[in-house]
């Protein structure tokens, strides 16, 4: 038994090491963002937060942020609506072309995003559409909607079809079944899929790179700066981008934790009246 525990400790260490490996570059970016000097060199001699002030008052940065947020919000809403029904077709209903359909959904996920972005650029040009941030929404949807569909589908697999049948036997219309049974049951997966959709769109750059035309998203701008040379704003905006994702995740967890309390409060209120 003793040998067993020491091996387990090794596994735990390995897990921690992997996490350190995954987060080390993010930490390095964090340190770089508070370096005072214009040219980064470790060890950092002087720390300063001046670059954050510069970033937050710059018009370019505000434009980048608003483009990225707008795209992410629209992508989230549209992909959830399409993905919700897509997931029902994927996992819940037994229909003739289901297996083929399942494979079609997986293809965009298994596809190199740079090539997909270029293919879309060419397609938009062929159709005579000038790429702007609006076309980037389409590009994000091609990749994110299948992911949203899969996340909701996993939940839909564990769904007991007899619940819907029972509702139907009791005289519910299709719409009532959807509203009273299907949507509430799939809601947890819908919220996490929405979180994924927003954050993946927020952080995506290979798809945006070719499909935004003259507009630019935050990751795209960062990439352009990285390739063309160092700018002290790169680590600063990198940290801001990560912080924004973290804030979204924290908010989501907070809201989820609050749901039981809110329900309880509502119940108390109803009982009191």
């Amino acid at each position, binding site marked *: 038994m003793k040998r067993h525990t020491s091996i387990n400790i090794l596994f735990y260490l390995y897990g921690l090491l992997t996490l350190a490996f995954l*987060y080390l*570059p993010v930490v390095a970016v964090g340190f770089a963002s508070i370096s005072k000097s214009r040219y980064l060199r470790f060890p950092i001699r002087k720390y300063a937060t001046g670059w954050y002030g510069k970033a937050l008052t710059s018009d370019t940065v505000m434009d980048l942020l608003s483009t990225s947020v707008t795209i992410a919000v629209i992508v989230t809403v549209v992909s959830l609506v399409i993905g919700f029904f897509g997931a029902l077709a994927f996992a819940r209903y037994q*229909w003739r072309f289901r297996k083929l359909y399942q494979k*079609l*959904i997986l293809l965009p996920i298994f596809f190199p995003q740079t*090539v997909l972005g270029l*293919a879309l650029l060419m397609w938009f040009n062929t159709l005579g559409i000038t790429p702007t941030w609006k076309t980037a929404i389409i590009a994000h949807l091609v990749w994110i909607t299948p992911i949203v569909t899969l996340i909701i589908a996993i939940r839909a697999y564990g769904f007991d079809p007899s619940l819907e049948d029972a509702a139907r036997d009791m005289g519910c219309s299709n719409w009532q079944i959807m509203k009273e049974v299907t949507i509430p049951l799939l809601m947890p997966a819908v919220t996490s899929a929405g979180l994924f959709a927003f954050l993946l769109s927020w952080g995506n*750059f290979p798809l945006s790179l070719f499909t935004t035309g003259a507009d630019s998203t935050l990751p795209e701008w960062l990439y352009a700066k990285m390739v063309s040379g160092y700018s002290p704003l790169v680590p600063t905006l990198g940290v801001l981008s990560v912080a924004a*994702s973290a804030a979204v995740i924290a908010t989501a967890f907070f809201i989820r934790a609050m749901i039981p309390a809110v329900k309880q409060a509502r119940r108390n209120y109803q009982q009191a009246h």
Partner: protein
Amino acid sequence: MNAREQRLGICSSLPLSALLLLTFIAPLLAIAAFSIMPAKVFTLAHIPDFSAYAEFVREGYWKSLAWSLGMAAVATGLLLVICWPLAYAMVRIFKRFTLIITLLVVMTLFVSENIRLFGWVITLMKGGLFEGYMHSWTGIGFDGLLYNVPVIIFGLVYIYLPFMLFPLTQGISMIPDDARYAAADMGANRWQIFKEVELPLAAPGIVVGSLLTFVLAAGAVAESKLLGGQAVIVISDDVESAFTYGQNWPLGSALAMVLIMVISVLIVVTLMKVDLDKVMGKVK
């Protein structure tokens, strides 16, 4: 398979199928059509001459393809070895820690990959986190660790780790404990259990994870650009320059088509063998 489910299935799959037909399948067909056009045209109203494919062979673009596929293969192999013990521990050994690892690994996916790669650039460069501190502590410095082939593979391993880890955990959780105990009771040693019981039973996870990492790594471009400098040119890089600087859409399309064909063959061959209901439905 009753009529109502048939109708509901088709109706609810329609929006997604339409989206993918218009914005995924159609662009791919456009690429295929452009790839057989003569050089430097921007419409499809020309007589096809397949010259772009001749250029692929003549101008040595196949070398970029070989680099992409080779580095992707090495990265996939490394990831299998790196992720197996962790995936195994996440399913069998860790308790609450599994949830923590899962959350923290998923969270890295939400950080733009170029920000994370940039983090490695400033960690590994001369005067970066590693060399800078080593120099100031020991007085011995070294040239940066960037701009070579191994560091590109390192970048691929780093970026695509989650895409191997999660399918592997899913695969390993499909191994019933009874199968391992039975093998152990019959006198199999640790290695035999691994080879004869665990590997075959976890195969769907291994296949999906390897396919995903290989395909994504083969089409990756940021790793070689940011970490590798100009050490090697990968195929996606060639596609990109043909479309942008070269203004030669047929060439770019032909290069993309070659990559797409390699990938499609792999995907079609493997996905035909994997039953998705089984892999996804059985979450534990």
